[in-house]
């Protein structure tokens, strides 16, 4: 773990409010995750890797764009670790940097269709851009 990773791990724990050491490694978060099959690192791995300070891998992971924010892992965590908050904090580490937005306004027109609700666009912007 590099010094930068250690700093980032501390910040991720601070802004998420998550204490990964509460985790008892039951795997329920990943078991209930609706995006599990699309992820490279899964919710339980976020918890373990933040604890170990393996942040660089998480910053580059596909999973930070795949979490649906359905809060299933938050509701069902028997230890109230609430991994979705960690995934969100890692995503913020990425998109808070200048020029690192994952979704840009110029991409929107080609994504639209007749019925797509505004809510979808607003949600995606909230998740993928700063």
């Amino acid at each position, binding site marked *: 773990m590099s010094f930068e990773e250690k700093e980032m791990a501390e910040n991720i724990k601070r802004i998420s409010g998550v204490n990964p050491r509460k985790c008892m490694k039951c795997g329920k978060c990943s078991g209930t995750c*609706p995006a599990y099959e699309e992820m490279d690192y899964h919710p339980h791995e976020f918890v373990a890797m933040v604890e170990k300070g393996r942040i660089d891998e998480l910053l580059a992971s596909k999973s930070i764009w795949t979490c*649906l*924010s*359905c809060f299933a892992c938050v*509701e069902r965590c028997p230890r109230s670790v609430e991994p979705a*908050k960690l995934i969100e904090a890692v995503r913020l580490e990425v998109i808070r940097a200048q020029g690192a937005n994952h979704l840009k306004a110029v991409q929107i027109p080609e994504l639209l269709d007749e019925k797509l*609700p505004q*809510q*979808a666009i607003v949600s995606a912007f909230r*998740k993928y851009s700063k």
Partner: protein
Amino acid sequence: MTFSYYPGCTLKTKAKDLDRYARSAAAALGVEMAELPEWQCCGAVYPQAKDEIATKLSAVRALMAARDEGRELLTLCSACHHVIKRVNHDMVSDENIRTKVNNYLKPEVPYTGETKVIHYLEMLRDTVGFDELAKRVTRPLKGRRIAAYYGCMLLRPGNVMGFDDPENPRIMEDFIRAIGAEPVVIAYRNECCGGYMTLENRALAQKKATTVVDAAASAGADTIVTACPLCQYNLDVNAVGERVPVLYFTELLAEALGVKEAEA
């Protein structure tokens, strides 16, 4: 009873049915929905990080406006309800967020989370009452088999939303019974529809939506009802294979109260 009403962006555009049938049904039930004069988009997703302040301000403005009108705040879209209710919870329970928000907004009277946020379904259950609603129904939806799809936003996290049992809810089934139809309890009624992932990874949204619609079809439901425009979209547009019509619960409410045509 009069509520301050927060419609949200989608109810003014792609989800007009959710809004207009809610209004005509409320009028028939003697409930007044007074739309907030200057509401802003809630942001559609609750900002979970503890240092997110600016992204919570529009919800606080709506909450504060309702307080200043001396009313409870009525919501209808699941996402708006989720965001506004959770931001309100932050204003009650997180001193750092409360202080920073008030420092920024500088309201005449600081906002400390005093507004009660009520979803339309909660209003039907707790203000009108499902027994009373059943009495007011003039055209019961007899013979209809309706599956309730709750999605995520109304239920989770249960300790903040306080909407219903997050794993075994019944409010929508009770609603369906009150309007004279038969509720069909389906698997996946409180699992994700795919949400905004339809923009990033449509295949994933299709998989999630199809699972829900398949569950409704195999249980013999003739209709799925939802309170969320994005769930409606995913279940309607992204489900592949057997299809079941996906309607807003307010449309069936207006139909049962005999005020649907008047509005349409």
